[in-house]
């Protein structure tokens, strides 16, 4: 896989659909993840944000998903290989922020830093 396919696979690995934030299909149903896409070359870290979207009046499920992702990334980050390289995904500060878009849709923004090593 190339780095963009690997990024999609990473975000799709948490049990709910994941979409490039610029390509969310009209028929997409909550919950899902949206993420921005920025890539670079060796030695440069790029900031990335993703959003968890849940249809709920409670923060419980979305927070559990956030914690699942946080555990997967880990304190020291997570290295994921792709063709001829790897991306080092790390949590950025602040890691997670709750956003209140409506009473019935919960959104949590996740901040990451990705260093592409290829």
């Amino acid at each position, binding site marked *: 896989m190339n780095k963009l396919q690997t990024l999609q696979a990473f975000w799709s690995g948490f049990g709910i659909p994941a979409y490039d934030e610029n390509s969310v299909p009209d028929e997409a149903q909550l919950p899902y993840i949206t993420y921005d896409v920025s890539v670079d070359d060796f030695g440069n870290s790029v900031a990335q944000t993703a959003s968890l979207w849940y249809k709920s009046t409670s923060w419980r499920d979305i927070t559990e998903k956030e914690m699942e992702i946080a555990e997967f990334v880990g304190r*020291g980050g997570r*290295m994921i290989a792709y063709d001829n390289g*790897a991306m*080092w995904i790390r949590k950025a500060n602040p890691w997670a922020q709750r956003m209140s878009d409506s009473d019935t849709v919960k959104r949590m923004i996740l901040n990451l830093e990705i260093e592409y*090593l290829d």
Partner: protein
Amino acid sequence: MQYTQIPVDTFKNIQLNAGIIVDSFAPATGEIGNLVGATTGGINFADNPEFVDFGEDIDNCPKNTMELKVLDGRDVNISGTFVTVTPELAKRLSGAADFATGDATHIVPRNDLSRADFTDLWWIGDYSDKNSGATTAGYVAIHMMNTLSTGGFQIQSTDKEKGQFAFEFTAHTSLSSPTTVPYEIFVKEGTAQA
């Protein structure tokens, strides 16, 4: 540009994160002992070799002639800053020190050294693109033998900040094995988790 390149396997050979300092490590199994403390600002290990140039006072002899260069010794140390402290770590940082009799919270420095003040330490850092799993993670590990706290016990407190404990441990050669350099390095690539 022809000479602007990096090795194709660079991502497999990078050391990551600050690493940890522990009192024991089994390279074959990846089993780690007790973490000595939490650090801040990373950790510095250095082997500073000291050389003598036997040709430096010989007329007409070029400086740094390899046939006349002699390795005189090594100054092997690790330094950094702890942000946690326990009675055990305070005793270790004091170097020559004991617990008071019957009181493991009371550390009493000494003015003389004992063999027990010299203990082994390991620094271990994440390494390679496969760095997960207790037995599969890649690592760079440095085993320092007979270390002694040569930086002494230090505390730097700051208003509204965490206290910091600067440290420096120096590894020592033993007369029981005078040719053994008091450190060794392990570099192991990780393997895929099952």
